[in-house]
């Protein structure tokens, strides 16, 4: 006789969100071919007005959000950034500006610091100037970024250097770590490109070999030891070579909210690729209601939605089934196990794609632009 079913699984009680990623705009002077924005970029006239953003930030703080990430696109293109930083500081939010830097002036950065900005994250494309400018498709961008990084430290703000990693810059990882140390950054984020949207378009040209990934893991481990107490290194490897999936967003609807330039509230930045989910807009609904009850946030929250092998897996509340968008993109169903998991029936095919693509010479990159995005979106649909 089998024991009575132990449905010890607690119904997911939703805690307050920790982070809010405010994508203030999709406009950006850079054209990185792995941009995390969707292929269909929001136009300037579709962006939320200042007063809606300010109201959303206040609601977020009341809901329990602790960390505010002002991002984009390039958030400094918004002239009302100052108002947002001031309000966020007053509301007790820890405010992080995620910027390409190239449009910032020292005066504006000083103003933002005085208004209560807590942290600046500057993206770089490589440690090698010519390659960095090539990948950003913006002449002079790397030099400008380094200048901005110096200003950040001169103003005594903490600095994170964010270097998206792929086969076209992974050989320079040691130089990127040195650069972060020399810029006196507190933190270096070396996240391997995640293959959604633009990066998925360019996957073949961005995918490193397994050997390159393993070498980079070892290199980062040694650097972490050497730089203990000097530089924190956050490192994300490409999950195509992994055995277990990443706990995407720390679990769907568990810790963060992403708001698009036009006000849609998403559980992750790629969630809109999943058809059949209605995303509420902060223009129409209160953030608390969206967080607690909306279809989008409830859809893959907790473990009730899971099928096998996730449902009975002992890691289901560790990785939360991995990434829904990757399951959709590869397996054709967002409710399936992330193919990055070795327990997925599609895992071998998933890994083989990476190996085959990385073995071939890199094709030409498709750089991010509204036009290229419209074209790619039509081809894909």
């Amino acid at each position, binding site marked *: 006789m089998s024991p009575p079913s132990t449905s010890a699984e607690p119904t997911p009680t939703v805690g*307050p969100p920790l982070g809010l990623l405010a994508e203030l705009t999709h406009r950006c002077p850079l054209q990185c071919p792995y941009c995390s924005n969707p292929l269909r970029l929001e136009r300037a006239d579709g962006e939320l007005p200042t007063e809606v953003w300010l109201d959303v930030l206040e609601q977020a703080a009341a809901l*329990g959000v602790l960390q505010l990430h002002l991002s984009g696109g390039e958030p400094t293109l918004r002239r009302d950034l100052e108002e947002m930083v001031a309000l966020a500081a007053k509301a007790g939010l*820890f405010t992080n500006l995620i910027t390409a830097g190239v449009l910032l002036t020292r005066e504006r950065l000083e103003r933002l610091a005085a208004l209560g900005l807590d942290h600046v994250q500057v993206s770089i494309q490589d440690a090698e100037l010519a390659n960095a400018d090539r990948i950003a498709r913006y002449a002079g961008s790397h030099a400008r970024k380094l200048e901005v990084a110096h200003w950040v430290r001169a103003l*005594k*703000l*903490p600095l994170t250097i964010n270097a998206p990693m792929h086969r076209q810059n992974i050989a320079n990882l040691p130089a990127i770590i040195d650069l972060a140390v020399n810029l006196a950054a507190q*933190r270096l984020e070396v996240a391997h490109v995640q293959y959604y949207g633009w990066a998925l378009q360019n996957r073949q040209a961005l995918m490193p070999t397994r050997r390159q990934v393993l070498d980079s893991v070892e290199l980062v481990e040694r650097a972490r030891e050497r730089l*203990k107490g000097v530089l*924190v290194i956050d490192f994300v490897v490409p999950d195509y070579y992994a055995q277990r999936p990443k706990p995407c967003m720390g679990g769907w609807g568990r810790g963060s909210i992403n708001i698009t330039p036009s006000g849609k509230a998403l559980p992750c930045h790629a969630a809109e690729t999943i058809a059949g989910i209605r995303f509420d807009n902060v223009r129409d609904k209160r953030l608390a209601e969206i967080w607690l009850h909306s279809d989008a946030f409830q859809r893959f929250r907790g473990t009730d939605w899971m099928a096998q092998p996730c449902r009975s897996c002992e890691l289901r509340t560790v990785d939360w089934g991995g990434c829904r968008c990757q399951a959709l993109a590869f397996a054709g169903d967002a409710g399936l196990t992330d193919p990055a998991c070795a327990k997925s029936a599609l895992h071998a095919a998933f890994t083989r794609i990476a190996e085959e693509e990385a073995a071939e010479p890199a094709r030409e990159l498709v750089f991010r632009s509204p036009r290229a995005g419209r074209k790619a979106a039509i081809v894909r649909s």
Partner: protein
Amino acid sequence: MRGEARRTVLVPASVPALAGHVKMRHDNVRNCWLILAPERVFTPDAVAVAVLQLCDGKRNVEAIAVALEQTYNASKELILQDILPMLQDLADRGVVTA
């Protein structure tokens, strides 16, 4: 390597303070103390909160231990054994400077 890019090693004579960019505050939504840092949220336990509230950039670690003798009904030496590794860990995470 730059002078500032060096690991801080805590000794009893060190004078610790919360790093300039770090915020410690009580969170009324979760009803607990929080340390907010770049991309990190720490939930310090009661001892850590008591120690960090004494990290004013004036007292040294030894003086902090003395200040806690009564609260924890323990000797300065015993408290030092406890709080030095804790402060070192927080320094390595960039929460405390000295």
